[in-house]
């Protein structure tokens, strides 16, 4: 049963299993464990980013292609929800229309970009996606009649999802189950389903072909797998999942603008999450997204106070180097170090660690057996 759910892809490391279980339970029970608006916000953001980062990992880690247009698909999902909800009013049918439109647009666009650039060279794909994503960002912030421009769009969601809605009259375990919590659970379960679906995809024969292409493109082609077709399908699946993540974020925030979905800063965040968590393992997406989001929400204040300490000690530039705004500097260094020294990220490190220990134990046992 568990094997079916996880598609046979177990964490393969006790520490990783424990971490994943903690994250899963914390997210599943977040409204009851951590009351208040801010923690719930962080939890919802983690759910959305796990799905977004996992879908990006399908491209970067499994297929071995770098795309900079992932936030564009994220944005398409977000604007899909935003535009229908603000035009047609807050109804479920509008939401359904929004998500279908977003998926169709994201999928078609991904297919077009893939057919254009994937047949030439992997580098072209990175550069072309960067160009297309920038153009999309410019369009979204200029066509203000349609997208709300720089200000973005505010809209209301169906009644059940509003904060004023009460599911039960009495509080449940000391928490009032209102529309926000229902929305949170929609986000949580949709992200979980999306993640498990992606796990299914990468552990299917299709996923194996993707990894074969990543390892040796020519050999995969020689074995009769049309590389361009496989890559294009992977990029479409990834785009659709990113659109879904954007849709969930739009549902949660009740606001969509260029900064929340399309900006290059989010693209960099996603890259960092994938690489630090571990490329080529979807569990890396969970670890990376959780670590980064929690750190971004809470650690910045710690860094800031460290910087003030340094300034108090009278060391020049320390306060600017350690200020909360410069947190990307340290992440950049961490990013480069992880690409060099542990390209498989935290998850890969944990797995090899466990594998080595098991092998050592095995050797010891066989060694003592032969002594007898």
């Amino acid at each position, binding site marked *: 049963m568990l094997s079916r759910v996880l598609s046979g892809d177990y964490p393969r490391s006790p520490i990783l299993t424990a971490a994943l279980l903690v994250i899963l339970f914390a997210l599943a029970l977040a409204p009851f464990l951590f009351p208040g608006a801010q923690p719930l916000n962080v939890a919802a953001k983690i759910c959305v980013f796990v799905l977004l980062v996992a879908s990006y990992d399908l491209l*970067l880690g499994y297929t*071995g*292609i*770098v795309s900079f247009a992932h936030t564009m698909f994220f944005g398409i999902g977000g604007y899909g929800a935003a535009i229908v909800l603000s035009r047609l009013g807050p109804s479920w049918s509008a939401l359904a229309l929004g998500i279908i439109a977003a998926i169709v647009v994201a999928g078609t666009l991904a297919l077009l970009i893939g057919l*254009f*650039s994937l*047949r*030439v*060279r*992997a*580098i*072209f794909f*990175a*550069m*072309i996606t*960067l*160009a*297309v994503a*920038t*153009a999309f960002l*410019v*369009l979204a912030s*200029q066509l203000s009649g349609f997208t709300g421009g720089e200000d973005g769009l505010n809209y209301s969601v169906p009644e059940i999802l509003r904060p004023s809605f009460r599911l039960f009259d009495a509080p449940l375990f000391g928490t009032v189950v209102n529309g926000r919590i229902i929305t949170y659970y929609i986000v949580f379960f949709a992200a979980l389903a999306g993640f498990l679906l992606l796990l299914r995809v990468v552990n299917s024969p299709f996923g194996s072909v993707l990894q074969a292409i990543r390892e040796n493109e020519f050999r995969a082609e020689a074995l009769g797998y049309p590389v361009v077709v496989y890559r294009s399908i992977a990029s479409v699946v990834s785009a659709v999942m990113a659109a879904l993540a954007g849709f969930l974020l739009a549902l949660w925030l009740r606001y969509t603008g260029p900064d929340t979905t399309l900006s*290059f800063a989010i693209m*960099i965040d996603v*890259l960092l999450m994938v*690489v630090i968590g571990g490329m080529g393992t979807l569990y890396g997406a969970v670890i990376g997204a959780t670590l980064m989001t929690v750190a971004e929400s809470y650690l910045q204040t710690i860094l800031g106070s460290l910087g003030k300490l340094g300034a108090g000690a009278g060391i020049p*530039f320390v306060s*600017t*180097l350690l200020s909360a*705004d*410069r947190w*990307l*500097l340290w*992440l*950049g*260094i961490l*990013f*480069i170090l992880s*690409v*060099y020294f542990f*390209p498989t990220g935290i998850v890969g490190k944990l797995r090899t660690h466990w594998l080595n220990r098991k092998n050592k134990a095995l050797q010891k046992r066989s060694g003592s057996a032969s002594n007898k």
Partner: protein
Amino acid sequence: MTDRIAEREETAVAAPRIDWIPILLTVGVALVALPLIGSFSTWMTLTVAALAMGMIIFIMASGLTLVFGLMDVINFGHGVFISVGAYMSLLVLWPLTGWVESPSIWLNIAVLVLCILVAMAISGLFGLAFERVIIRPVYRQHLKQILVTMGGLIIIEQLLHVFFGGSPITIALPQNFRGGLAIGPDIIVERYRLIAVVVGVIVFLAMMLVLNRTRIGLLVRAGVENPEMVEALGYRIRRLFVGVFVAGSALAGLGGVMWGFYQQTLTVGMGLQVLVLIFIVVIIGGLGSIGGCLIGSLLVALVANYTAFLEPKVALISNIALMLLVLMWRPQGLYPVVKV
């Protein structure tokens, strides 16, 4: 045997042949735009402005295409060298404000040349460190190159933030380069754009001369073809590549100075913003081709200027549209150099 020699001679003769179609295309675009715009003086102003703009883009993009063509390294950090170059001109402009405001054209030129030299030297040094620390471990691995150079871009950009602050800095053009110059009835060109054209032409000619007419250029080109053979003949190919990378970074710094003066406002993110444009240009021109880079820059600038005049909304995506059209026609860019 004789066949082979004849063949070799044939290719040797055929090598310098120039593919005229993209050049004619660029001229054609300009000519087609004339009746659409209607007024000759407006068209002339737009065209000259676009040529100058194209030259600045070319200076910024040439380093990237050079490094890629010769070293097969894709440097996403190239954009940040542009920012570095632009900010380093401040080191000259701040102490020498008197020269900037001076009415003497010689002092103005001196200040510009000093800016360029300082910016090229410092961004070249940055390039040296960047190659050594960030790129050397990932030669021949494109995926990792994209990732680590992106990381390097983030780091240097943040360092600029630390030392120069995050708010935009305005800089003034030297006295004599301000304002426009009438070069005919109703045709006015900004003086600075003329300077940009001059600098761009110098850079292009210098690159062509060094690569095609000097010993170093010969070695570099040979290194691209067959690095092992060049090494076997006793040349240190690594050192050659480092030199190329430093040159590419210095060119980015030069481009940064020109771009900074053009915009007259410096922001830390300016390099990253213009990087997208540069990518479009080198893709259109064909990755690794210097001539293609020049044609691509001019084409992009011309199309952007004409569409901005005729249909401002379309201008937002004119670059992308142009790139897609070119790729449909020649999937490897106008001048394909790099083997797939």
